[in-house]
């Protein structure tokens, strides 16, 4: 049986020491912040969006190694995607990149905080740029079903 501490492999430790896409985008088109009330991890994501495409994405904040590694991977996956493509990114897209599919329940919130922030940022942006208000209900429903 693999132990829980096996999650701390090279890749996680490297990402936590040298996070990718870490920082702020001053002229962002959308930004979102959230935190985990239990552990105090806190993540902000800024995005540049051009013609429905995410041309740049950066994150900053503080968190454990799992949180920082997952935020790095998520921003790598997201960069260059269209809004529709980014909307369907799932938790396993992030976890599998880091071999964290079997992460214990107590740490899963660390891993997925940045995904939650990304989705909130996406829906904020899409909501602000809707052309007809009918789509708003569909959007709200989709957002509500995320977690």
């Amino acid at each position, binding site marked *: 049986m693999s132990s829980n501490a096996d999650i701390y492999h090279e890749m996680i430790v490297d990402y936590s020491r040298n996070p990718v896409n870490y920082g702020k985008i001053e002229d962002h088109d959308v930004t979102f912040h959230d935190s985990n009330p239990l552990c*105090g991890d806190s993540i902000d994501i800024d995005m540049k969006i051009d013609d429905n495409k995410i041309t740049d994405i950066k994150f900053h904040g503080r968190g*454990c*190694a799992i949180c920082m590694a997952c935020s790095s991977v998520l921003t790598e996956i997201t960069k260059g995607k269209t809004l529709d493509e980014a909307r369907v990114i799932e938790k396993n897209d992030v976890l599998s990149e880091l071999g964290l599919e079997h992460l214990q329940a107590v740490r899963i919130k660390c891993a997925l905080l940045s995904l939650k922030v990304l989705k909130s940022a996406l829906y904020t942006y899409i909501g602000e740029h809707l052309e007809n208000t009918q789509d708003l209900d569909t959007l709200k429903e989709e957002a509500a079903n995320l977690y």
Partner: protein
Amino acid sequence: MQSTESLFENLRKDFPILKRTVRDNKPLVYLDNASTTQKPNQVIDAITDYYQNHNANIHRAVYALAEESTEAYEATRDKIANFINVKDRQEIIFVRGTTEAINLVAYAWGRPHIDEGDIIVTTEYEHHSNIVPWQLLTQEKHAKLEYIRMDDDGELILDDLDKFLATGKVKLVTFSLMSNVLGTITDAQKIIEKCKTAGVLTLIDGAQAVPHMKVDIEKLGCDFFAFSGHKMLGPTGIGVLWIKKPVLETMVPFHGGGDMIREVHKYETTWNDLPYKFEAGTPNIADVIGFGAAIDYLTKIGMDNVREHEVELTKYAMEKLSQVKGLHIYGTKDISKRGGVISFNFADVHPHDVAQIIDEEGIAVRSGHHCAQVLMERLNVAATSRASFYIYNTKEDIDILVNSLNIVAKVFKL
């Protein structure tokens, strides 16, 4: 008579949970006692005995079981009075824990006494339970909440208190007797003296202090005092609120319902005597009785011995931990001014990662903000790791903790 050293070695056998192993067959090293403590057989048996042999509601029926359960329930009140040196048992109210106790005061004392412009003073090292109820109250009443700041050694800057008291607007000063993060023991005597001179009431959060040192309420001279059972070998869901009678008599009820009334008519009600006016509904009878057994257990050991044992452990742990390269301990280095609580950070490794890696070695430490985000902000950290000791901990537990940090250093290439 056995030596105190063998006393503490022998008592481990009273705690069944200490015999179990965790993770990969590692003996449990439980170092999260500031959060909650383990329970000895004496407490577990008292609860089982109540349910197996005496279970009945209290203060109501006339049959034998009800008489037994009422007697056992009320006996705990007397044990508490003795334990913290309170002369009048009517001043002792049973609550769910320290959080409920402070909320009770904020509601039942605060609402009739706090007006617009009044000031309530707390400190930077409080638990959220001694901050949030006062935010709710002061926001509702358009009153003000002020903080006594903490210096870099984790001690309160009492000049701040003088400044607040000089406004003449302060109605209450509320503080913990021991910080749940830094272990700092507050100079309560000094604070209370200043407040008394200014005619201001004081509330003490004793959740961290009462389990670990002799506390004498009469000597302290405060007006409100709160603590929890589960941090001192007792069950969860039971705590104590003590209030000086002249203050208690000016308070409105907290919860309305059974047991707190004298007479109920369609449109008016008269209240029961103290302390029952503040104990509405069927209380947590079994756990009050279990708490009584915990107090008996601690009384038998002697609180001065408990404190001495923890000073010894803390001194040893501070020495060993400060030898670990890259490890930073928060709070004062003066053992006489701190309890058995050590918060630390290890290089740039996040406390959650530290806690998870050493969990594999069977070690239970807390990581996070410890419900003290105001303090975390003051220390400019997101979180800390915290090891906290109790009567059953040994120097060997501390050795295991220190050795496990080598594994953390290896994983994170420190």
